[in-house]
């Protein structure tokens, strides 16, 4: 019992029947994902996204970011390449409310993330970071609650990590992304107030026909990995 208390106090355990987590969910804009996340992503907190580079991990979050931007700045901390203005503008992101921090030293990136989250003037903070300690992620979580902001933590996986998987850090939602011909396959590893899901197919064919290939299949669950059907 004592053991459980200890974990509970550190926020490492949550109760399935406690559903105050589900208030004010922000829609991701993708039906399969919204269903699995009981309505959408939480409006604040830390969201861990484990993904290979360049499969659509930013595009997946665009509807969420667009909604969060109405509350304040979008801050991109240490993006792995130059953020393209035309891409943002084409997707209705207000460029005058975008801040890019080109800092790649881990400690300073975390400092900026914390400042932005707790300032209360940022809608969402996107942070590219390999990993976080439990202490660091707790700290960011508290900051995000203080400032009613959310942190999207992008953990870019190497090819080897894609095979073996990566250990999740404490967060409100933790997901692993994998490329799929029609969009992205999402595994929800953990979520507060919900259960885990495997192999959710996010269909992006309507939005980005040029970036997807497979013909419309009858089932929306796609096994991973899937070979493109021609």
């Amino acid at each position, binding site marked *: 019992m004592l053991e459980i208390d200890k974990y509970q106090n550190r926020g490492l355990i949550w109760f399935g029947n406690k559903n105050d987590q589900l208030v004010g969910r922000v829609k991701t804009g993708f039906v399969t994902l919204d269903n699995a996340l009981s309505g959408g992503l939480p409006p604040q907190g830390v969201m861990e996204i484990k993904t*290979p*580079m*360049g*499969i*659509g*991990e*930013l*595009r997946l979050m665009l509807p969420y970011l667009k909604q969060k931007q109405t509350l*304040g*700045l979008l801050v991109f901390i240490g*993006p*792995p*390449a*130059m*953020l*393209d*203005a*035309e*891409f*943002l*503008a*084409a997707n209705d992101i207000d*460029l*005058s*409310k*975008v*801040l*890019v*921090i*080109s*800092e790649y030293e881990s400690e*300073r990136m975390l*400092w*900026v993330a914390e*400042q*932005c989250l*707790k*300032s*209360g*003037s*940022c809608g969402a903070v996107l942070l590219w970071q390999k990993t976080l300690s439990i202490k660091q992620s707790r700290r960011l979580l508290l900051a995000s609650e*203080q*400032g*009613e902001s959310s942190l999207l933590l992008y953990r870019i996986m190497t*090819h080897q990590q894609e095979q073996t998987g990566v250990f999740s850090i404490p967060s409100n939602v933790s997901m692993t992304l*994998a*490329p*799929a011909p029609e969009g992205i396959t999402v595994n929800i590893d953990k979520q507060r107030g919900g259960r885990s899901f495997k192999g959710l197919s996010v269909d992006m064919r309507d939005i*980005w026909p*040029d*970036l997807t*290939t497979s013909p419309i299949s009858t089932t929306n669950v796609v096994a991973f990995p899937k070979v493109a059907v021609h």
Partner: protein
Amino acid sequence: MLWLYLDFHSLQLDALDSSRETLRTELTPAPEVVIIVDAKKNEVVQLNAMAKSQGITQGMGLATALSLHQHIQVMEYKPDIEFRTLQQLAQLLYEFTADIALAFPHGMYLRIDNMLCLYKGLLSYWQQIEYVLKPIGYQYDYATGTTPAMAKVLAQAKLNTLLDDPKKLKQALYGLAIEQLELEPKALNALHRVGVKQTKQLLALSLKEMAKRFDIHLLNYIGKLMGEFKHGLIFYRPPAEFNVDIELLFEIENSQILQHPIKRLLIQLEQFLSIRGLVTQQLTLHLRYRYLEFIELSINRAQGEYKMEKWLSLVRLKLESVKLAEPVVAIRLLARQLRPLTADSGDLFSQKSPQVSVDELVAVIQAKLGDNKVKGVCLIDQHHPQLATQYSEGLAIENTIENTKGRAADQKTFEGRYKLRPSLMTAVAVPLKEHVSILHGPERIQTNWWHEHSIQRDYYIARSDKGRLCWVYRTPQKNWYLQGYFA
């Protein structure tokens, strides 16, 4: 007319003392005997009370002074320190007196007859002046006069009484020896020869007679002294910008300790700005090493601010990243871009009020990381994909992206004006090394040949074997490059 003259006879000494007072620590005991020596004349010009008690007097030679006491701190007389300090004093007094004229090197005239109406009498006016001058600890002699020259002569004679009766003032003037007047040695000599020793005797002569016997300079002076001639004065005007120095009496090697003297400067800045109802967006700090080299730090806030605490927190962050090559001996604080203070009205109806405003947040991050790492994004009208995105320092201001707005407006009438572009672009295109299969393309981008970055490229959207969506291009030479990712 009634004038007040303040004679700060030990201005440099007091200026050093007051800066020492602000920086006093256990490590720096106050030196006991301090004298300031004019190097050209080789004589003591200013000395503190300890030095006086040792028998040192003003006008004494340096060697004599040194022979009177073993441990003397000797400093060189620097008129520019007095000049700056005098201006600071004038700035302080300007709050209480409209007309101030500086008399270099260490005095100032204040016209008071027109101020007495406001202060209801000489006494309460003088209390106000003393209230300003007493706390900062500068020594001064003072006197009033019906003309500026009279006030000056009486103050230099250390009258130190306030008189507003012209008769009494004249009497005080009559009591002076003519050596106490500001006369040239030649004129003094001439006066002595005709037996004039007291001012009373001199003033008994009519100007007409004087004009016959003595030169024009003496005549001019007496005319000004008695108010027959106009005394031309240039009145002090407060500076439009903030520019204050602190000379440190000891060298500071640790950048963290620097924040203490800087705090002092920021308090002065706050007073300066709040009186004028101004705010500033940029501070410049000069940290001066010996031999006049200095490093310049500039600290920005998009939102103007005058409060010391707000600036100090930014200064602290900035100092964290400063490495001092040498110990610092002086600090200068400049604030140039001043603008009126306006109330920042937040959104009355928004549910949450941010603890930190956007501008403040940007300023804090800039102070910590440096200005060049904090960028806003602008879109400009360019076919060249790498040039279409421009980064601005700090947050992109709306009017710098007029093109974007134009485009957005166009987009409403012409759907799909934006091209499909990858979210992440490589800064420099790298040769394509992976195996990819092409999904879509080509899209030819050819910029005008007269442009600097003229290109002809065929762009394709391709998927790598690992599932990455890449934007690749082929040059006319059939070389393939990777331009970005559709992340």
